[in-house]
Structure formats: C-alpha cells, structure tokens
C-alpha cells in the first residue's frame, strides 16, 4: 500500500536505528502521546532496535482510556433506554463503568451499535425517526471535525432525534499538565501526527519554549517513529528545544483550516476530567451555541453516584510515564484485558493493554537522566 508499505522497510529502519545509536551519548526519556503510536511501537517491537539509553514512555494518548467513569455510566444509562439506539466506535464498548460497560448493556438487550463514522449514526437517526440516536463522540482533535460535521449536518437538515455524548480531549493541555508536574521525567515529545494534521503545530511553540523540551510532530509507521525519535535525540544531544515536523507529508504548520473552522463553529473549549489524571482546564470540547441542542448530556438528565477507581490501579503514574505497565503489581494478575482495573488496560492502544497484548513484560530499567537539558 502506497505511503504505508515503504514506511515499514527493514533496511531503512535499521539505517535510522543505527543513526540513533550513533548519536546517543546518554540516557533520554521520550514520550509519545498518541495511542496509535504506542500501538506501532509495541507491535513492531521498535524498542528492540533502539539503544538502551533511549527510553520510550507512553502518555495519555488514548481518549478511550481517559474518558471518565461517570461518562460511561451515563452512556450505559442512555443505551438502556427503550427508545434509544446508542452508537459508538468499537473500543468504547469495552470500557467498564461503575458496574457495567456498553458491551454488558448490549448483552442485556440494549440497542448498542458499532459505527465507522459519526455520519453513519446520523444516517441511523434519519432511518429511525421514532428512536433517539446517540453517538459517543470520543476522541482527540483528530476526530472533532467529523463529529462537528455530524452536528452541523443534523442542524442543516433539521434532524432532531440525534445527539452527541461528547468526550473530546485536547493534546497540548495534557502535555502542559504533564510537563508542569514536579515528577515529570519526560525530556522530549513525539507529538501526535494526526492531531496536528487538523490543528497544525503552532500551539507547541510556547510549550517547547516554556519547558525547554524538543517536540517533534511524528507519524505512525515504524520509519516515522524512528525518524521522529532521531530528530528528538539530535535536539537533546545538541541542547536544542524546538518544534519540528517529521510528518511533513501530511502535516502543515497551520493545519487543516476548513476543519478548524467547522470545529470552531460547533465546539468550544471547556475543562475536562481525564481518567487517571484528574481535571485539566481548557482540555476538552463541548457543543456550543445552536449546537447545544445536540448535547446528549443535556438531553438526558442523569443522576449517578460519583464513581470509584480501583485502589490497585496506578494509571495516573502510567499515563504520566512515571511507571511502565509491567511495574504495576496488578498488571497481568488482577488487571488484564478481560478484567481491566483502570483506563490504560481498557483500550488496545492504552499502554497497559498494548504491553499485555504484545508481551512486553520484561523489565527494562536503564538509568533515567535528570532534566539535563532544562
């Protein structure tokens, strides 16, 4: 497949890995934020090609994992309504709420459907005028244009039996929250390539400057990740902290303007709860103005008890890259993909699930350097 296969070329991968090995003189901890990148890293065994000085940690890159339990409970409650068709991307189905997941609800008879695109949910609403069709709008900025378009089209066509349960999370505020924590060990970032395809990468300049960290916008194929890592390492070794773009074939500095325009018309920035991290100000989207009528949160009032996380779950530490999944006592024992205790084990792109599924269960304990470049 063009623009996919060539980025998996083993010779090129080895060349880039060799370049990294040559450049590195001391330990560096680099974080990637996007679950898709975590997935590629673990699936291709990329870390096997890197020198032990380069430590990759995985950030809160999975919007599925960071969706608060209360929202899952809300989704389940809506799904159980006899007049509702609840639509979602597949992975959300498995997230356990306080007592059950959407998948459990489906097994108990709720009309829960997996869709490929939010427009499919809108189509269902048109086809089922006597039902309330609700779409679980989860995602980073990457998915916001699609969700915005669904709301926009619903409004344009006067469709009333459609609504969105919104759980959008934004990357830059999460990065800032991580970087401003006094426990932060991250020295360089691979920024999420597809998020930047939409939003551009202007927002990262002030962050790089303030926290003195290199940030490289990176793609998702093995060569992209290796090149992105190489670019971060070069900066770290040279003592630079700039924003660079590895994913040049898909990302422009200003991002996708038409997409940003539609997002701005439909959504506004709001504070958001991140499961495992707590509330981060200005880190989410909510529907605004005339689109508020499509907010499932408003349309379906819900009384739920505040949810409790398992005391064994250290997801906060995992999502900040302070611990690796296999360093958690519950990992693979009490906490498995069949029985997830917390956020990162839930989605297959969550760090714990990725580690579990792809078997990265060995201990890699290189020395972590102090913030040498700050």
């Amino acid at each position, binding site marked *: 497949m*063009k623009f996919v296969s060539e980025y998996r070329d083993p010779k*090129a991968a080895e060349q880039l890995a060799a370049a990294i090995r040559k450049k590195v003189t001391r330990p560096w901890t680099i974080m990637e934020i996007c679950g898709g990148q975590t997935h590629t890293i673990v699936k291709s065994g990329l870390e096997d090609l890197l020198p032990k000085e380069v430590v990759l940690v995985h950030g809160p*890159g999975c919007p599925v994992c960071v969706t608060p339990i209360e929202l899952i409970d809300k989704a389940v409650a809506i799904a159980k309504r006899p007049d509702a068709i609840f639509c979602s991307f597949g992975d959300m189905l498995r997230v356990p709420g306080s007592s059950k997941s959407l998948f459990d609800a489906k097994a108990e008879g709720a009309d829960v459907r997996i869709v490929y695109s939010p427009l*499919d949910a809108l189509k269902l609403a048109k086809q089922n005028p006597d039902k309330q069709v609700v779409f679980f709008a*989860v995602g980073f900025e990457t998915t916001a*244009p*699609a969700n915005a378009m669904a709301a926009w089209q619903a409004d344009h066509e006067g469709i009333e039996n459609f609504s969105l349960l919104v759980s959008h999370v934004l990357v830059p505020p999460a990065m800032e929250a991580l970087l401003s924590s006094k426990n932060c060990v991250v020295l360089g970032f691979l920024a999420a390539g*597809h998020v930047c395809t939409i939003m551009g990468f202007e927002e990262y300049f002030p962050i790089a400057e303030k926290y003195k960290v290199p940030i490289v916008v990176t793609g998702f194929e093995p060569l992209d990740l290796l090149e992105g890592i190489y670019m971060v390492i070069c900066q770290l070794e040279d003592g630079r902290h700039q924003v660079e773009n590895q994913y040049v074939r898909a990302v422009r500095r200003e991002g*996708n303007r038409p997409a940003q325009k539609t997002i701005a018309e439909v959504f506004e920035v709001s504070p958001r709860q991140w499961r495992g991290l707590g509330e981060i100000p200005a880190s989410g989207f909510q529907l605004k103005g005339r689109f508020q009528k499509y907010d499932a949160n408003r349309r379906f009032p819900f009384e739920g008890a505040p949810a409790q996380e398992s005391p064994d779950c250290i997801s906060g530490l995992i999502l900040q890259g302070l611990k690796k999944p296999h360093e958690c006592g519950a990992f693979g024992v009490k906490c498995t993909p069949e029985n997830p205790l917390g956020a990162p084990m839930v989605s297959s792109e969550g760090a714990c699930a990725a580690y579990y599924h792809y078997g990265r269960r060995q201990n890699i304990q290189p020395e972590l350097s102090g913030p040498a470049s700050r």
Partner: protein
Amino acid sequence: MCLAVPGKVVEIMDAGDLVFRRAKVDFGGIKKDISLAYTPEAEVGKYVLVHVGFAISVIDEEEAQRVFEYLKQMGNIEEELGEVRQ
C-alpha cells in the same frame, strides 16, 4: 485513536456545496466512499489521508520522499567515509 489511512482519489462526486463533496478513494484495491468536506484541494489522482470517513489531508508526495532521500544521502556519506555501521 488516530488511525488514518492513505488512499488515492479515483472519482469525485460534486454535490454543489463543498461541504457535501465526496469521493471514491482507493486503498490498495479497496474503494470506499469518503467525504472531502475538509480537503477542498483534493483532486483525482492525489492521495488523501482518511480518518473516520473524512479526508483530513492531501498527501504531499514530494515531502513523502524526503526521509528516503535523506537515508540515501546518509548511506552515500557512510560509504564515502568508509565508516563501519554498528
């Protein structure tokens, strides 16, 4: 969460308003109907990056070659200098 796949635009179905513009996109032999609402510059023959049914970017084919050019250069330099790869 950001799975986006590159595909080639093989046919464009205009529907008046740009917002409703759609295309048949070929992913290595499989064709899917995709919205071009966010890529007004997409043309037949160009490659787009597709995410949840929407093209989110037109792939810059020249830039796509960049990393391979760079690696080729790196390879040439190493040969010239007679460096031994680790």
